[in-house]
């Protein structure tokens, strides 16, 4: 079965999207953009193919008893991947301890690190049993926050301290991310199946998906890092065009697109064909972009996905003027020390970010009906809320489209270009 691939190499995340021959979405994959762009693209692509195979499993299982178990199987698979990475991380950390930690601490280090990893594994097993909560898609974030939490409990200020443990984690996580690990469908689907008890209907469906030949006929790349993709120039499209086309494909009535990504914000106007008629993007200064929220989340020791819901609890939004990413932490601390509530500050921060994008929208020609909000920040409920309010206040009633897959808009656009090329 032939397919095409779109890759959006973003500043913070890399997304891949696969379309089948009819131009229908077959799979999506995401990873954090890491130092090795090729690898990031490869990982995102692997993820997308895993996702595509799961779609096939789903199609096969549709209507059978097994249909209800596919969700669990997916979660089992994701967990197997995570545990695989965790085991690798543990090995690296232990080796690093032997290589570089002070002799007298080695034993204690081993005990502490093994314990942390054991606890994380146990937590993961537990999570699998219970209905899943939302959390970051990425190993670094998912494991990182658990690691910090446990390290803070068991760290010994006079021996293997919290600082030392975190240092060890920092040192090894980047290697885990930058080594090609065996994370493909075939690598873990067997164990995942076992975990859900090898339900017979599902085994067949999986069998079908495993052997199914998925052959990409064309690939188009876009995004901030597109120039670094190992593709010829014809296979590269500007992210503006891709976002425009992607948003158009998702919501054909779209005339205005706002994309807030990790370090840039784009306001795009498209016509009824999805052709870009105007655009504006921020320059040079990454204030008020997604990374800003990343810093804030770090500062508060929260996951990115937790920011929005927390901000939504605010009753009184604090007015914030500076959205310099680097000063985010300082701003937050200053406000907290003035006695403002966390959720109110957060609400203010979200509003401030959205206000910055409002000016880009205005520069690009305003907000027409329909309006589509894309990029990673569209996953954030508080940002969406703020956009909704501000658009309403300044442009009147507008249909606001948000797709749960909004982060893939650029990749979708790229894949559509690939589809045209393959046609």
């Amino acid at each position, binding site marked *: 079965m032939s397919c095409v691939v779109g890759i959006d190499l973003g500043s913070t995340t890399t997304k891949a999207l696969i379309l089948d021959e009819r131009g229908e979405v077959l799979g999506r994959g995401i990873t954090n953009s890491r130092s090795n762009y090729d690898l990031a693209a490869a990982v995102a692509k692997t993820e997308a193919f895993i996702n595509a195979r799961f779609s096939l499993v789903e199609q096969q299982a549709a209507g059978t008893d097994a249909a209800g178990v596919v969700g669990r199987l997916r979660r089992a698979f994701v967990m197997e991947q995570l545990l695989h990475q965790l085991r690798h991380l543990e090995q690296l950390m232990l080796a690093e301890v032997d290589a570089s930690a002070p002799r007298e601490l080695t034993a204690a280090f081993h005990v502490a690190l093994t314990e942390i990893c054991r606890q994380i594994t146990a937590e993961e097993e537990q999570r699998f049993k219970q209905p899943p909560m939302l959390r970051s898609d990425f190993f670094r974030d998912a494991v990182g926050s658990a690691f910090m939490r446990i390290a803070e409990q068991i760290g010994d200020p006079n021996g293997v301290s919290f600082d030392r443990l975190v240092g060890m984690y920092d040192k090894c996580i980047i290697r885990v991310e930058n080594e090609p690990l065996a994370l493909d469908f075939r690598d873990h689907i067997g164990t995942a199946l076992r975990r859900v008890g090898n339900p017979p209907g599902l085994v067949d469906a999986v069998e079908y998906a495993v052997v199914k030949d998925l052959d990409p006929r064309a690939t188009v790349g876009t995004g901030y890092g597109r120039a670094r993709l190992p593709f010829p120039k014809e296979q590269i*499209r*500007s*992210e*503006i*065009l891709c976002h425009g086309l992607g948003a158009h494909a998702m919501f054909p009535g779209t005339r205005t697109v706002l994309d807030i990504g990790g370090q840039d914000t784009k306001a795009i106007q498209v*016509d009824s*064909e999805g*052709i*870009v*008629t*105007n*655009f*504006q*993007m921020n*320059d*040079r200064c990454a204030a008020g972009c997604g990374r800003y929220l990343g810093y804030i989340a770090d500062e508060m020791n929260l996951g990115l996905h937790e920011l929005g819901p927390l901000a939504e609890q605010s009753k009184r939004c604090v007015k914030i003027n500076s959205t310099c990413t680097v000063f985010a932490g300082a701003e937050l601390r200053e406000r907290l020390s003035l006695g403002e509530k966390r959720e109110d500050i957060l609400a203010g921060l979200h509003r401030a970010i959205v206000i910055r994008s409002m000016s880009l929208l205005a*520069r690009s*020609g305003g907000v027409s009906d329909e309006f589509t909000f894309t990029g990673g920040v569209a996953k954030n409920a508080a940002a969406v809320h703020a956009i909704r309010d501000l658009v309403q206040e300044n442009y009147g009633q507008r249909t606001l489209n948000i797709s749960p897959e909004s982060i893939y808009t650029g990749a979708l656009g790229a894949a559509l270009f690939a589809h045209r090329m393959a046609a």
Partner: protein
Amino acid sequence: MATVQKDRSMLLQKEMIANHFARLEQAPETGEKVVYTFVPGNLTELIRSFGALPMLPEINALQSGMRKQSGDYIAEAERAGHSEDVCTYVKCDIGMMRSGNIGPGGTKLPKPDLLLLSYTGCYTFMKWFELLREEYQCPTVMFHVPYQGDGVLEPEHRRYMLRQLREQVIPALEKVTGRRYDEDRLREHLVRSARAEDDLVAVLQAGKLRPSPIDGYFGTVYYVGPIFSAFRGTEEGVEYYRALREEVDERAALGLGPVTPDGPLNDQKYRLVVEGPPNWTSFRDFWKMFSDERAVVVASTYTKVGGTYDFGFRHDPADPLGTLADYCSGCYTNLNLPSRIDMLVRYIHEYQADGFLINSVKSCNSFSAGQLMILREVEKRTGIPGAFIESDLVDPRYFSAANIKNRLESYFQMIDARRLGKTA
């Protein structure tokens, strides 16, 4: 053949500039008087009619930028207490002065005998010469050119300028040079100005042809150099523009495009109109971003800062002082925003452009404050979307090649997509 011809005007320009700077360097010995003044609203013919040599600090600054010396000069000025936020031409000039006043061509620049502050279309000019006055302690004469706030030159304003010319500027020049004002000499200069202006306009309007034989921005900043600086009203100036016009005519006849950093651009894919000054520190890289995409600039507003000749103005020997007032008042940055928008719209139509670009420079409030409004209005009136990029004149810190390239690329791809959309 064409390349040899091209060389002729370039050689002429090189030679006249070299001669001028040599004369400037020797001025302290020869006793020739040196008058510093600004490009917009420069009174070159008047200065020359007193036998004095004009020098234009802005041109030195932009040349320093092109020769990659400006970064150090700016740092020098900032060390001396100048703010990061203000016009980098000023800082470049002050830095150069503090570093020994060696001009961009390597010759020593003379001190001014007079600062002729033609206060035309830019607030910074006033401060610039106040600053230079502190350094040089030389006479300064203020010539206030009222802004065309309502889009026309009011008769009272013209009278006000004439009075200043007669009662302030001319006496100052007389005093410094020791010569009497000689209206006939001034007239002779003005005759030559008009002749060169005719040729220049013919060159500028060649941008209307397809392919355009000139680049109306990157190439034309070289073309306007002599007339915007010391050579308006001189014999060399007349000769230069005659030669230039011949070359351009010839290229046009052969259906050739301009010579760019990527060689001749005969196959032109996009025709653009540009507003705003160029970036000088990365001038060639900047130009290359256009020629790489086979984009040619057919007209630009920056090339009108030293006079809007293509709309008919010519220096008129019949009314020597009046024509100088008219000239000053009509320089591009002395026009109000609605007039600037009219001009861009007119260029887009008359030169049949596919798009327009605004290069907004951090330095210059006179140009930049309001450019986003210009963008919108021009888009509204022509139905053509514009591109907006940000950089600076001579501050290398503010040229982000990756950003600009990204924008231009997206912009050109957008024009393509629109074209496809239209034909489909």
